[in-house]
């Protein structure tokens, strides 16, 4: 804490520790994080009950449609968003682009998303996230990817899904994959974990930790293609800790209403009567594209494995 001096017990505050970085997303659990491109959208998201907003220059659906290089947002835009809301502000940096991450940390964003939705800056290396005081969230399709990102210092994991499609199928695949692999890992004897770790291409100490606790050591949200309250509740019932909604809100007919409905569906994910109530009359959902219709080159989830 910057303004906090030494206390009587002679120990000064420690920022940027693993505990502090991992505790931040714990406070977001059971909540919805919404993609926004400007301060007006950020305000709509906050008023609808978002637990955080993700600042980016274009939502994934537009990145898909427009093409070109997708980069970190203009800092001016991020500052305006931070000024507009009291909830945490996250922002995206390109995979491996540690200078974009340095800039985002200096701006005071609460969390950096090292994101496959943006164009990759390094096809070999992710950012060494241990070097930062700001926590990072990273995408993963399976347990191996999740544990590699955690080994690099990620404080939060989200499924990659397939961003900007409005098609939930990949988010479901990735959530099932992560939870399924954790269950398989738990069924192994201790001497079988080494080979499992090798096949996952993940560090053995993290594999042991997951086997012993039955869960990832960090918070795990769903992301990538969620567009309706039912999509959010589906992923929550599968066992994720919360959800990201990107293009699904501000590419729909009535963003404020849909956003509020997804927030309620995430809290009452186990209650079909509430889900039916909040799903009524939401207006047009985002049009979307089925993942099956995308060419291999268009798949964002294959970036940064």
């Amino acid at each position, binding site marked *: 804490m910057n303004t*906090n001096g030494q206390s009587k017990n002679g120990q000064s505050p420690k920022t940027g520790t693993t505990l502090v970085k991992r505790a931040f997303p*714990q406070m977001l*659990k*059971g909540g919805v994080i919404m993609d926004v491109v400007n301060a007006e959208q950020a305000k709509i998201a906050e008023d609808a009950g978002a637990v955080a907003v993700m600042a980016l220059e274009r939502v994934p659906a537009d990145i898909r449609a427009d093409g070109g290089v997708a980069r970190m947002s203009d800092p001016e835009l991020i500052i305006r968003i931070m000024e507009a809301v009291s909830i945490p502000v996250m922002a995206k940096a390109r995979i491996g682009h540690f200078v974009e991450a340095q800039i985002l940390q200096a701006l005071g*964003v609460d969390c950096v998303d090292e994101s496959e939705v943006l164009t990759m800056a390094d096809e070999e290396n992710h950012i060494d996230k241990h070097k930062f005081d*700001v926590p990072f969230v990273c995408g993963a399709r399976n347990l191996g990817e999740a544990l590699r990102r955690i080994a690099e210092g990620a404080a939060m994991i989200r499924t990659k899904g397939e961003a900007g499609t409005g098609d939930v199928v990949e988010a479901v695949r990735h959530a099932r994959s992560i939870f399924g692999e954790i269950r398989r890992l738990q069924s192994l004897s201790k001497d079988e974990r080494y080979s499992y770790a090798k096949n996952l291409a993940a560090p053995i100490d993290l594999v042991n930790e997951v086997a012993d606790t039955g869960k990832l050591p960090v918070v795990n949200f769903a992301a990538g293609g969620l567009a309706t309250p039912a999509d959010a509740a589906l992923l929550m019932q599968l066992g994720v800790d919360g959800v990201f909604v990107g293009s699904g809100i501000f590419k729909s007919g009535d963003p404020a209403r849909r956003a509020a409905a997804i927030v309620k569906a995430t809290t*009452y994910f186990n209650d079909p009567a509430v889900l039916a109530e909040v799903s009524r009359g939401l207006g047009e959902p985002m049009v979307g594209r089925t993942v099956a219709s995308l060419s291999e080159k268009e798949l964002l989830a294959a970036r940064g494995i």
Partner: protein
Amino acid sequence: MASKTAPQPPPSLVGGVLVGVLGLQGDFREHIQKLESLGVTTRDVRRTSDLDGLDALILPGGESTAVAILESSKAAHGIFDEIQKLGRAGLPIWGTCMGSILLAKDIEGSKQGRLSLMNITVRRNAFGPQRFSAEQPLDIPALGAKPFPGVFIRAPLITHVGKDVEVLGKVENGIVMAREKNLLATVFHPEVVDDTRVHEYFLKMIE
């Protein structure tokens, strides 16, 4: 009479006690796990009817604006009013971080929804963005001589307390733990560390 084969209840600090944790959003599960490790029966509270029969209630860490908006939803409708009634009637209620904001009568510069139970003023996000969030050992005499591992996450601070509010812990620029009769506020997160002393202190408030 219990038969010899009947399952034994877990060893409990406070036998037969039921503690609710507000589960609308936030790190409620961390509180539930901590309470269960102490042998306490818990309930995830998301509807007004979930408040029936509780011996105490915890308001966890989370986003106070989001929870205040969820409270106004049909499913949770009236839950703040009911908690307010129970708090005034003496139910022990403990708020951590967001929970301390919900308990406060005054939130600096904000009109957001709250319970308005405790005679304290809080400043939201008093330390700045997440990169200034920190761990800091705290001197809290009520918990004993050993410093308590304070974890502050975009934490608020208590900047003013009214009469009948006992200050239990502070840092240089504000109060971090305070109690007013049956109400307890901590701006840090005892639910994310191994030390169970604040949870035990709260359980002792159930009489």
